[in-house]
């Protein structure tokens, strides 16, 4: 479904060259729940950004559903991000000036979806994460766990095939963290493919497969 072949990523400034990823090979299969672990700065988020088509690798190839995306233009990449991928971030990235419902609708704005359908799908997604009673609230009125649930609803509202979660429990206490992981596990049980970056061994143990990075190199 999502295949990375010999992926390298180097950050260059005028004086320094930093190797962030070195020859990463990863094949994410449909329905898998994969965790990516490693110490800070080992390239986990870079890997997730490259998988999410938010960043370009310096070398190697990315294929989604068998199609190589190397030569895709901005519009095609945006369409893939919108239709195939859902993102969950450690710091939620909710827009404070929009209500919970409007935040969840955002991915659907970039499709030709009517306002009525957008509303219905967003309500459905919020029900799935148990936040149907907070639709009119604004992010500042929510707890950390609730914010992350809104972010999950936003990630799944467009029914993407792959969910990329960058330390989704990193800003939450263990109880909230487990609740979030329960939701992700439920989504996986319902058929979603999930790649999750985490620091937490216990969380990683609950996934199907573990990918370990060290200094940009895949060690497991």
């Amino acid at each position: 479904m999502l295949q990375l072949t010999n992926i390298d990523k180097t950050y260059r400034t005028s004086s320094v060259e930093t190797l962030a990823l070195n020859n990463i090979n990863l094949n994410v299969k449909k329905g898998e729940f994969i965790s990516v672990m490693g110490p800070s700065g080992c390239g986990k988020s870079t890997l997730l950004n490259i998988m999410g088509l938010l960043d370009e690798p310096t070398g190697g190839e990315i294929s989604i559903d068998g199609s190589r995306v190397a030569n895709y233009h901005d519009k095609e990449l945006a369409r893939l991000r919108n239709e195939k991928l859902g993102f969950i971030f450690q710091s939620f990235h909710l827009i404070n000036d929009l209500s919970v419902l409007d935040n969840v609708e955002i991915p659907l704005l970039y499709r030709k979806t009517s306002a009525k359908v957008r509303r219905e799908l967003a309500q459905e997604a919020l029900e799935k994460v148990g936040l149907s009673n907070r639709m009119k609230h604004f992010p500042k009125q929510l707890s950390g766990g609730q914010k992350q649930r809104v972010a999950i609803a936003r990630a799944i509202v467009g029914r993407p095939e792959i969910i990329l979660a960058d330390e989704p429990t990193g800003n939450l206490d263990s109880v909230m963290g487990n609740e979030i992981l329960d939701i992700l596990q439920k989504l996986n049980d319902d058929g979603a493919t999930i790649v999750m970056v985490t620091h937490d061994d216990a969380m990683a143990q609950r996934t199907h497969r573990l990918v370990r990075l060290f200094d940009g190199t895949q060690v497991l």
Partner: protein
Amino acid sequence: MLRHLLKLIWNKKGSHSLLIIEIWASFMVLFGVLSLIVYNLNNYLEPIGFEYKNVWVVDLNNNQDTTAIAEKTTQIMQRIRSYPQVASASRMSSNTPFSANTMNNSTNYQKISSMADDYYTDEEFSKTLDLPLTAGRWYLPEDRVSKSTPVVINKKLQEKLFGDENPLGKVLGNNDSESEGNQKTTFRVVGVVDKFKAKGEFMLDNPAIFKLMDKNDKWNKLVLIKTKAGTDATFEERLVKDIAAMAPGWGIEVSYLTESRKNRHNLTLVPVIIFLIISGFLLTNVALGLFGILNLGIARRRSEIGLRRAMGATEGSVTAQFLGEMWVLAAFSVILGLLFAVQFPIMNVFDIAAGVYLTAIAAAIVVIFVIVTLCAWYPSRQAARVQPALALHEE
């Protein structure tokens, strides 16, 4: 997407209120300046109605001389008309073309009354200023014997007093008709001219009435002289010398209508230019303010931009979103401004045609949106170029 933008802006109305006020104030200033420009431009595009080139104005000032003024003036007129360089000469009241003097009076026909600019002239006036008649004729020497003073009116006054009715031969009155006793206080229309914009191209075509000056009039001491092409200062010198010899002690001053016209234009254009400079300065400040606010806004909203890119926004849609936000803000401001601006045509403020205000409103809206687009374009493009991975990592 529009509904999304409206919500986003409505929810941030507090922080946007200053910007809305700033754009609103710019709209109002622009509306004022553009109304002035449209008004003057509309007038300018209308023909002036007469020919001013090669026309001189001779001011005969009798100073302390009080004897036989009318006779001397008649002799001077005969002398002036006898020069081969003179095509035509006419006496006129002090409100000569492009002068600062204005005379007006209420003119009545039956129960209809209209204010009209009054000009006292003689039989040669239409020839001197090449003033074409659209109906009837200019007054003739034999008209002096008639019971009513012969007058020529312009089309504007004709429309006001007569509508579609033929004005020729109709008798008019004015406010002084009942009080002037034995003088001729009624006026018979003998002709109609199209336009007479005495204060120049920028003047509105006001209702005007030309009345035949009394033959022995001694108060109106201005003479318009239409000179033949090629007449130079040598003739002017001779003319002044000859008149001075005929009327010793009189002051004689010659001026040219072309020069008076320039001065009159300056009187109109200088305030417009001053307003334009002020509004230009204001708009530049607004533009810089908008540019700065947008740049700052984009710096603060980098993570939102990253998020939208991650959710499927293209570079184009990020640009469109930021431009759209500014357009929505500008639209709010313009709607607020329209509430004030539309009162001008509705209430007929300054007696200016509604079309002038409506054109100014339309032009002000266009200018505001052009400025907003120009100011928002570069920051919006910058926003679109934000690297999503970097922007998401920054928060």
